[in-house]
């Protein structure tokens, strides 16, 4: 094992910016590339693409007669995405290399304006992602409020049926897109290098690319609304997909675009974890959160290409009249169902594993005990990731395909509850005879365990084919996946924010407002979604604007709870504003007395994370163990600057 001095780093690039040679695109100030230029270029790209699409295709009879030109819409949105990437500067480096020019490394602009630029610093990207996913979450949440408003009354309607179907579909799609990145994006990017003792991600440009493409995906999916929306729900089943208007283009292209970001983020994180661990950070010393990121990143990398291709096939069907999903012309709607869920079920665990990782990472800190059964936890996460590729047909138990496969998919699906159950073994074991500090992050972790228990157990119900006949396609399954995704992942995200924001921003989140936020969110989450299990068992299908009048009481109860649940997010937003800007309280260097490596660097984290790469000596879970070895050798102590660490090297 070599130590820091020999490790190639990019410190030189950030310590000594080549001031004289800075191209105009990277200067501070308005005359450079930033969010503003990206927006202008996106608009121009849209107009150009749309014009070009009309130019080449408007005269084809099937387009001229239909009154809508999906080719122009597709090229317009593609132009928008390309313009956006050009405008922000994501393509400067590859384009320069393409024409054989010397491409200077991105210089880091100092000050707040770096958050509006194409930054290759993983800590900037992490915070950009925080804002990005919260934007997604709040717009998706508003749509959820609209859904619950419509369902207040079975017969009096707030929206027309078309508008309602668009709202439901947009809500589902936006939330699913957000959930793919809600932890990987902000916390994965920010924390993985800090936790494994690295100065950077493996591919800083790909990392920045993943964020800006994620935002482009947000713009594409919302372009569905001015196009008249789409009515297929987030699952986009053909032939309804084929039948839908131009809003469907936004759905298909949106998934393809966001898929690019998911693949980029996953690939980058997986490579970083495998290759950029500090000396001594063996696999049995890797923090459990990093294990969950590795499992998630693998799923992102391996499952998303299927979604990407499936989306492109759909786009081809809708633009140039191919027939991947058109039964009348030799295609099959089952192809979409299979491709979609072949991605869609790993996606479920893309949305569960990060939550497990946060829960397992935080438990030792707040119980003051080592993580129980560390190896079981890590193998459970990898096991879930592997198994999740073998269960997708449980979404198609009633679809009419190959019935003889049902026992197998019932078995694999029920088997996936075993590695998932490991997380509970780890959680319960860690709590055993502990001294639990019921701080805010710990409360959110406990809520995750509470909610995911209900979500997981009901998942076993859904996997049982005879029971699936009753619960498939109804409010039962709707409640089930809200319990796992919102009850699990979103609560974990909150736990992570309350826990790590002090490190990321240097400010403590306000505890009193946080308690109000937690209790409102926890109580009203359960009051919103638990009744939906009963509503589902009583026979209410998903995505309906009207329902049996005897279910109004339960629906109203769920709706009112949902409004209060929505309010809890305003409390959270208020807490952010209050704690970060109105009444900032400086966070101590290690407010939770954690042994984790990420808390051992200086606060705020220096641009290059560690002055010297630490040599890891043990795992970070030696709580309540007198005489335990130190976590790492920092070679002169954290924050002590030595020039030996700076070797000449550029980021790849």
């Amino acid at each position, binding site marked *: 094992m070599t130590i820091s001095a020999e490790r190639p780093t990019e410190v030189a690039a950030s310590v000594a910016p080549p001031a004289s040679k800075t191209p105009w695109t990277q200067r501070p100030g308005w005359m450079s590339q930033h969010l503003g230029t990206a927006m202008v270029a996106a608009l121009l790209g849209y107009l150009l693409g749309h014009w070009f699409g009309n130019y080449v295709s408007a005269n084809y009879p099937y387009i001229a007669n239909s009154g809508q030109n999906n080719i122009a819409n597709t090229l317009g949105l593609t132009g928008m995405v390309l313009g956006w990437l050009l405008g922000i500067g994501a393509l400067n480096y590859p384009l320069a290399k393409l024409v054989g020019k010397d491409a200077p490394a991105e210089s880091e602009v100092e000050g707040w304006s770096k958050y509006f630029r194409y930054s290759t610093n993983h800590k900037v990207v992490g915070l950009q992602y925080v804002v990005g996913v919260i934007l997604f979450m709040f717009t998706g949440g508003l749509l959820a409020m609209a859904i619950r408003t419509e369902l207040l009354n079975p017969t009096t309607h707030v929206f027309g049926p078309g508008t309602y179907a668009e709202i439901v579909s947009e809500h589902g799609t936006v939330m699913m897109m957000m959930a793919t990145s809600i932890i990987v994006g902000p916390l994965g990017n920010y924390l993985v290098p800090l936790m494994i003792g690295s100065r950077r991600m493996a591919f800083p440009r790909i990392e920045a690319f993943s964020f800006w493409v994620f935002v482009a995906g947000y713009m594409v999916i919302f372009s569905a609304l001015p196009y008249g929306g789409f009515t297929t729900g987030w699952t986009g*089943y053909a032939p309804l997909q084929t039948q839908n208007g131009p809003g469907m283009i936004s759905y298909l292209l949106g998934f393809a675009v966001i898929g690019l970001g998911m693949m980029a983020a996953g690939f980058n994180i997986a490579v970083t974890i495998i290759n950029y661990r500090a000396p001594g950070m063996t696999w049995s010393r890797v923090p459990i959160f990093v294990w969950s990121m590795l499992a998630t990143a693998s799923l992102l990398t391996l499952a998303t290409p299927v979604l990407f291709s499936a989306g492109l096939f759909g786009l081809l069907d809708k633009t140039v009249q191919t027939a991947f999903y058109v039964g009348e012309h030799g295609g099959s709607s089952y192809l979409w169902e299979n491709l979609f869920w072949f991605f869609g079920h790993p996606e479920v665990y893309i949305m569960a594993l990060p939550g497990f990782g946060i829960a397992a990472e935080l438990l030792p800190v707040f119980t003051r005990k080592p993580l129980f059964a560390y190896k079981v936890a890590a193998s459970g996460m990898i096991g879930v990731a592997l198994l999740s590729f073998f269960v997708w047909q449980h979404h198609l138990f009633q679809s*009419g395909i190959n*019935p003889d496969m049902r026992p197998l998919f019932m078995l694999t699906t029920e088997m996936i509850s*075993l590695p998932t159950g490991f997380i509970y073994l780890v959680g319960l074991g860690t709590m055993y*005879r502990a*001294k639990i500090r019921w701080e805010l992050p710990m409360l959110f972790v406990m809520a995750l365990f509470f909610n995911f228990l209900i979500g997981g157990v009901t998942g076993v119900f859904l996997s049982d084919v005879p029971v699936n*006949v009753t619960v498939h396609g*109804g409010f039962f399954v709707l409640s089930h996946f809200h319990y796992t995704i919102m009850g699990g992942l979103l609560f974990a995200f909150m736990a992570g924010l309350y826990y790590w924001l002090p490190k990321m921003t240097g400010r403590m989140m306000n505890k009193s407002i946080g308690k109000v936020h937690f209790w409102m969110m926890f109580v009203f989450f359960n009051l919103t979604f638990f009744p939906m299990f009963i509503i589902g068992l009583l*026979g209410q299908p998903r995505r309906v604007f009207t329902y049996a009048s005897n279910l109004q009481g339960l629906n109203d109860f769920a709706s009112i709870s949902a409004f209060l649940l929505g309010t809890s997010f305003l409390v959270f937003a208020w807490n952010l504003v209050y704690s970060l800007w109105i009444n900032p309280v400086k966070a101590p260097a290690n407010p939770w007395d954690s042994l984790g490596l990420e808390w051992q660097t200086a606060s705020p984290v220096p641009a290059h994370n560690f002055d010297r790469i630490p040599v890891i000596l043990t795992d970070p879970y030696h709580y309540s163990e007198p005489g335990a070895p130190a976590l790492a050798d920092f070679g002169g102590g954290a924050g002590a600057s030595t020039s030996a660490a700076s070797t000449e090297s550029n980021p790849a």
Partner: protein
Amino acid sequence: MAKNNSNYGSDLRKILWIWAVISIIVDVLFWFLVGPHMAPGRLTETAKNDQMDLNILMICALPVIVGVWTYWGWSLTHWGAKQNGPEPIGGPAARSNLKVQTWWIASSSVLVLALAIFGTLALIMDHGSGGGEGPNPVWMPDGPVTQVETAALNGTATWSPGKILPVQVIGQQWKFTYRYPTFGGFETQQLILPANTTIVFNVTSLDVIHSFWAYQLGVKADANPGVNDVAFTETKGTGNFEVRCSELCGIWHGAMYNSGAVVSQSTFQQWATSTQAATAANTALLPKFAWTYTPDANGAAGGYYPDGNLTPYSSVQVYGAKQS
């Protein structure tokens, strides 16, 4: 410290006792108070079995939930930083426990395998449990199902009390209609079924994917264009039931429902015969009875399970005359 270690398992033993007691109470209460009212009721043999499966899963699930909650209850009351409990200990004893881990993994594996075996047996013995089995079902009820289906397709099938009744369900934006091949293939918007009869539903669609969900019958099968999705149920007594579409099929999906009834065999026969006569003029204008009605590119319409027995592979025979 020594005192702690010597009695390290005492909390766990107490928790397990509390768990066992509460679990038994909760399970017994559920079985007798809630179980008989669980979805989807007991109108048909299929529904009754589905309800039984749901209840057995609940009986297994409740102790799991109770167990975790008991543990948390104990942790809240005994292991908080503000409580006067023993200091936590780290080190190897707190990092793993082979006995506990082995028990956890073994017992959860046994439970999961048992549930999978039970689910498979229930699925097979209940003839697909009312779920859509596609064009070539593998778990069929007793009786000459294949012959009845073939006769239905050839227009030679008849029905009399006691025989299997084939019914076709046609999903379309946005309603369900039903054809009765044993009564001349008339089409109606009313789903009327005879009591104490094995019903074969042949579910298809004219446009997008719908899902035929006859809640009280315990039947759910997707309606795919170009596909004959077969599901079985065995009616018992008489009663009403609701039909809803449970797959998003466009803007009026929410309005896609109607109700039906299981009536006595003689009432059914009267109703079917009179409806057949009353709608004869309309029936003459309908396409010939077929398993699917959507046009296809090459006569195969996807060709799922072309080698099965129920729908022999002849494009015209399987999928009906082409609609042009």
